[in-house]
């Protein structure tokens, strides 16, 4: 079974600075999808960014980018120019593309605080 590990329960960053959240995963599959979801205090799950394993190029969405290291099974999220609104819980998630019963497997999350 796939597992996702987020080793940083909490992180803190100064506003306008850059922060990197770590995620590692374990899988025997060669093709899969990886995601970062943001969960603000409202507890809604908001997609931040996604990466297809077959793509070598790291995904980027505005201030958010990933460092995807397939051989190392690492998928870190970099937030540049951090804003107060970035303060939230961030979950890394894995999904297999197999069949129709695909599910997201989540890590335990990293709580990000942004200092003004």
């Amino acid at each position, binding site marked *: 079974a796939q597992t996702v590990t987020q080793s940083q329960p909490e992180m803190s960053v100064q506003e306008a600075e850059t922060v990197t959240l770590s995620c590692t995963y374990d899988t025997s599959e060669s093709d899969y999808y990886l995601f970062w979801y943001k969960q603000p205090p409202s507890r809604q*799950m908001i997609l931040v960014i996604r990466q297809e394993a077959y793509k070598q190029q790291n995904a980027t969405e505005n201030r958010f980018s990933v460092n995807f290291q397939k051989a190392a099974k690492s998928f870190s999220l970099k937030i540049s120019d951090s804003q107060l609104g970035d303060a939230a819980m961030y*979950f890394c998630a894995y999904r297999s593309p197999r069949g129709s019963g695909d599910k997201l497997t989540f890590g335990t999350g990293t709580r990000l605080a942004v200092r003004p």
Partner: protein
Amino acid sequence: EPEVTQTPSHQVTQMGQEVILRCVPISNHLYFYWYRQILGQKVEFLVSFYNNEISEKSEIFDDQFSVERPDGSNFTLKIRSTKLEDSAMYFCASRGESPGDTQYFGPGTRLTVL
């Protein structure tokens, strides 16, 4: 922009009562999911649903749970006899037809079992 909606936002019930949580997935999506998140813990998969049948379910999804798509728009999760440990945030999600499509989450229903 299309979004997944869920009702109610908060449900309070007595232990042993039945609850039905409702979701309206994005209209052209074909794959539907329920996840739950106990307070302070990670999000856990409950069940996936496609073509009017369960595709996969987790160990959590025991006989007390059931899902249904009663019409063309709603997707429901029923808990027959709630337990204290069912208190959690329940998220519905849906995705499109392509295997690479992203799962989009609803805002969640907070279930409190007293």
